[in-house]
């Protein structure tokens, strides 16, 4: 071809055979270069695909986790509502009535004078060996305190007796 710009684009193939036709014969060097480029390209593409698939998987996992989170939020809200309904005033009243409870009408206060100024309960002595702790009896209450306690119980008993 005589290089007429009308017939051929300005792309020239370096290797031509003797008749001016393009030749696709590659030298060993070119083939090696081509294979190297192919390998490099494959590596880059596989790396890209690997990363892309990792990202897609991670993204999908995130979406699933978010969906899971939303479900838990929904379950949590539902449980909270169930608890609130169980604790509602009407529900508590109904259940209390079923159990035979009635609303208290009053509180009767028993006025109790303080006992004599001595320790209410003297308890265990401080230095009890550990192995003896189960067997040691508490010290008896003082006589004043015992009297106060008896009086208190007697008052309570008499109050109980006058209840309908």
């Amino acid at each position, binding site marked *: 071809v005589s290089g007429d710009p009308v017939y051929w684009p300005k792309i020239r193939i370096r290797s031509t055979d003797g008749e001016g036709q393009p030749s696709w014969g590659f030298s060993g060097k070119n083939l090696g270069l081509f294979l190297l480029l192919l390998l490099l390209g494959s590596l880059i593409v596989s790396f890209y695909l690997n990363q892309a698939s990792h990202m897609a998987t991670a*993204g999908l996992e995130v979406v699933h986790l978010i969906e899971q989170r939303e479900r838990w939020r929904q379950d949590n809200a539902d449980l909270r509502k169930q608890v609130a309904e169980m604790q509602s*005033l009407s529900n508590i009243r109904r259940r209390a009535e079923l159990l035979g409870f009635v609303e208290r009408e009053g509180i009767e206060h028993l006025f109790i004078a303080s006992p004599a100024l001595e320790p209410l309960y003297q308890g265990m002595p401080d230095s009890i060996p550990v192995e003896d702790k189960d067997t040691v009896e508490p010290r008896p209450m003082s006589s004043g305190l015992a009297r106060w306690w008896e009086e208190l119980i007697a008052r309570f008993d008499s109050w109980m007796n006058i209840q309908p």
Partner: protein
Amino acid sequence: MAQPEWPGPGSKRRLMVLWMGTVVGVLILTGRLFYWQVIRHKDLKALGDQWQFVDKPIPALRGSIMDQRGFILAMDQYEFEIYATPRDIDDPDRLAAELGSLLDMDQGELAELLSQRNRDYVPLAREVPLEEARNVEEMGNRLHVAALGMDVDRHRVYLERELACHLLGFATGDNEVFYGVEEFYDDELRGIDGSWAGTGDVIGLQIGIGPTKVTLPQDGRDVVLTIDRTIQHIAAEELQRGIAEYGGESGTVIVMQPGTGAVLAMASYPGYDANLYHEEATRGEPFTDPAISETYEPGSVFKVITMAAALDSGIVDRQSFYNDTGQIAVGGTIIQNWDRKAYGPTSMTQLLKYSLNVGASTLSTNMGEATFYDYVQRFGFGEVTGIDLPYESPGILRLPGEGDWHESDLGTNAFGQGISVTPLQMIGAVAAVANDGVLPTPYVVQRIEQGGQVIKEFHPQPVRQAISASVARELTEMLVETLVGKENLSIPGYTVAGKTGTAQIPVPGGYHPEDTIASFVGYAPADAPRFIILVRVDKPRESPWGSVVAVPVFRRIAQRLFVYLDIPPDEVRMASR
């Protein structure tokens, strides 16, 4: 053999034309591509996004409203809308049978909906609770049905139904709020919706390909009230009982801690189930809280304020007497006692006990306009109390110098006529007497929480010292004395201070001949008040008097509060001091 010349003669030009045509064609195509891809890039991308991407909101839950003990009064729950894409359904009858039992719907109706293959989207059920929605989802997975989908939404639930409905207000499904705590604390309660933005199909349903952007929702904050739901229940129950007993039309009860202004209960009758607000809306009733928005003439309860002003200004003391002639002229208006009688020499305590209009007017006229109205304003009348609720009315207080004030107002205002107040203003003013003269700011919310963490806390805010502490205590003792011997107010073991009121209802040209507003404001234990209660019953038919209608309601509430709040009788309290 000689090859013919190629290209042949004449072909050169044709080839040139073809080549030029190709170049022009390529240029035109490149130009068009540039136009569509570069110049129209933005709007075409937006159009594409509009078709391809769906942005579905993920609803945030509105915060809960809880009483002071943490019991939930209002909360959000999720609900679902279930839909189907009939073109993807192979066996509509089988799916209808499965769905019918799960959603409690008619199978035939469902089968008909699911068979509409010409429709892309068919809504099947709305307001489906979570459990049912989960069952439908599980069924879809089990049968490998991809044609079912669901949208999530939120729904407000008022667990105690009518309880405190006016105080709470309500929020609709669209998060529109109407009065009450819901409206006042809307900014705290309202969450921030999240969104799911990703690729969708032709009918806008999400599909799991392409980039997805998820913005998580942020739930609203919880509001903890000063209200105790048990006290609220007691107040509402006793108010309703009182209205039923005495044939009242409506009424209000407020229970407050006088020392802090914390409102423990605020009940008005009639109420409505806040879950069914739309039914109330169709009845045309305005959504207002009568306790803070509706005004009335307080009547004789206002004599507490007049007496407080008289004692604090020093024009009288507890031992003072005046001569009750049965009538007094103020500004050309003759004022008479409620029973038209003259009581002669009368002490200040007797003035309160017998609720004498002439005595109250005598005190106000002796104080003079400036002093009397100064005290009225010190007690917070004519201005809003500042409670954390919307649409509070300041009441109507005409002041000297203003066009509509008349000299006779000085006399009538002294016994609660010609002045309009809200129930909250009235209880707040009497609470000042119970609180050593300090006017408290009423409030209904004690803190805001998020995930159990306290975000904001509200503390009592005293407004001002309306009267001195000594006068307040003296007046309390007088109020206790006035109630001695009132059998329907007797609560054994406890002293109560308070004042009844029977107010006429203004109508054009005067007052209604029969209708009244019966009220009582009282606090207990008188020496160290734990609560103050205002009872107001409108238009009672059985009796017009506050002492007959409102006092029993007060007594029953107070008796139950002594038990509930574990308040020992005076004797026990005094002995243990």
